[in-house]
């Protein structure tokens, strides 16, 4: 077993996991407050990516700055989506809430395809190819930057929820919708702001991912799935769980294929587990967690 390679994979998975955490944080926040799962999450992230990409092409501003614009635009989209669609389905049976958001996912995916074309794009930004050596390991600078910024944004969002009035109103509405209404909170508005913050998180994450991975309109769905898996792993509505889950999935997807291949060879199977099947690792984790601990690692209550 090549320890160095495994460590290298684990490190790069861990760094990506920081961005995953941010994506999952948005999903978890929305779910924790409104009990609605945003099935368009990954597709909205792709919009965030394309916004940062467009700014890079038009003005040359690096995605590591323009992710803020992605976040702002996605906040607006999320706010409107909540006002127009999500707010009307809050009292629907859980299963029926899935369908309109799946519909919105199709709208986001295919409108991105019409606006920006169906092909894969790998934009070259300033830091694209640079890397830092740490002993025997190498770290891509963009990955490290994306990781650090994602962590900073996550902490800011958590602080915002903890300290500001809006944040407190969001937590109050999450705890008890009727109670919050009674003490004069404008719950509809709070919900819309919260949905907007959730999608702003994923928009920012999208911007941060632009220098790391090629973008195409169709990469959204896997990210929706990954963020579900992280959120379920960490516990629905648990923000700390979303962060830890992000790191676990990031490392598992990165190291998993390599380890499983070694395992296959170890038991005498001449079978490789290709990297293109890394999602199977996360889906497997999802199934195990749904069956064994559906409330997630950090979740108190179920659903």
């Amino acid at each position: 077993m090549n320890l160095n390679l495994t460590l290298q994979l684990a490190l790069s998975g861990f760094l990506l996991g920081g961005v995953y955490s941010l994506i999952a944080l948005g999903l978890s926040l929305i779910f924790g407050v409104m009990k609605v799962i945003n099935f368009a999450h990954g597709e909205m992230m792709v919009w965030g990516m394309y916004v940062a990409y467009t700014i890079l092409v038009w003005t040359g501003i690096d995605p590591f700055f323009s992710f803020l614009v992605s976040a702002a635009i996605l906040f607006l989209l999320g706010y409107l989506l909540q006002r127009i669609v999500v707010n009307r389905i809050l009292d629907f049976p859980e299963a029926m809430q899935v369908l309109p958001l799946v519909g919105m996912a199709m709208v986001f995916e295919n409108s991105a395809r019409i606006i920006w074309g169906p092909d894969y794009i790998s934009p070259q930004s300033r830091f694209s190819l640079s890397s830092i050596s740490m002993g025997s390991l190498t770290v891509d600078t963009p990955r490290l930057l994306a990781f650090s910024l994602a962590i900073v944004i996550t902490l800011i969002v958590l602080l915002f929820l903890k300290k500001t009035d809006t944040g407190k109103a969001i937590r109050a509405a999450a705890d008890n919708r009727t109670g919050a209404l009674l003490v004069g909170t404008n719950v509809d508005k709070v919900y819309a702001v919260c949905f907007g913050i959730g999608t702003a998180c994923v928009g920012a994450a999208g911007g941060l991912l632009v220098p790391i991975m090629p973008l195409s309109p169709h990469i959204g769905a896997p990210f929706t799935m990954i963020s579900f898996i992280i959120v379920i792993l960490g516990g629905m509505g648990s923000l700390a769980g979303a962060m830890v889950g992000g790191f676990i999935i990031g490392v598992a997807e990165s190291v998993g294929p390599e380890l499983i291949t070694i395992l296959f060879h170890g038991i005498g199977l001449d079978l490789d587990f290709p990297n293109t099947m890394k999602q199977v690792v996360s889906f497997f984790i999802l199934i195990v967690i749904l069956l064994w601990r559906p409330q997630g690692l950090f979740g108190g209550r179920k659903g």
Partner: protein
Amino acid sequence: MKKLYILLLIGLLVLLLLPKFVSSYVLGVFVLIFFYAYLGQSWNILTGYTGMISLGHSLYVGIGAYTTYLLTLALGLSPWIGMWVGGLAAGLIGLVIGFFGFRFGVKGVYFVLLTIAFAEIGRLIFLHLKIFGSFQGLFITPNFSFVNFQFKENVPYYYIALGYVIFSLIVVRLIERSKIGRYMVALREDEDAAESLGVDVFKYKMIAIFISAAMTSLAGTFYMNYLYYLHPGTMMSIAFSIEIILRPIIGGMGTVLGPVIGSFLITPLAELSRSYFAKAGYEGLHLIIYGFLLVAVVLFFPKGVIVYIKKGLGPGFIFRVRH
């Protein structure tokens, strides 16, 4: 009720005679209408009648198609026989998913995710199997004959697809009238109440997923022999699962005629807009329309179009379930 049967009979007669009067292109659209009506109906058995939403039904389509293909390749078995083996295989996979889901109490949105997870694992595994052409997909060289389920013209496909729909209508109507169907509806409406009255909730959910998965896979055989091309990326994707569920939702879930009505409404629209927008250089625009439709239907007609048709036609035209 009698009136409805007469109406359906007239409709059937018209459909039987249709190939005499219309072009091959129109027949092709009708084949798709029937194909999606059948798929929607199969999905309807599980989701419409027991309320467990599955977004992973494309998995069974793939299992059906690939099993039939393998049996033809290895044993020279006719697809007409192979499809039932595929049905059994898909049914068993359905039972496995159902066992995990229902035994462990995975409900609502969690069940949706469970079905997606299994379907995606299936898609990724099939995508990496060399025997099925890996990432290139599988091209099938047609060898036209009835035994091979492969025909030069659209007419035989038209009648076969119509047969599929009639078969599914009969199955669903029989289920609906039987005890099994009543139990399914009871557990859909209130699982705890049904259980407290002695309904074996687990058993009837398992029956529903078995029938639903097995029937869905039969459509896979048709898909393979109609398009001569199999690729997990299209046939086993979440997008295809959405195609499957769209029509019964628009028509009306948990009703016998809902999926058929939905397919008659949506499929021609989808076909026309797909070809029209593709020509105009806006590939994918029809999917945007789908997306908005899905939102609008759930917001404004959560019970499907069939409710309005029933109202329009009056009480004589309703399938009645005696209480």
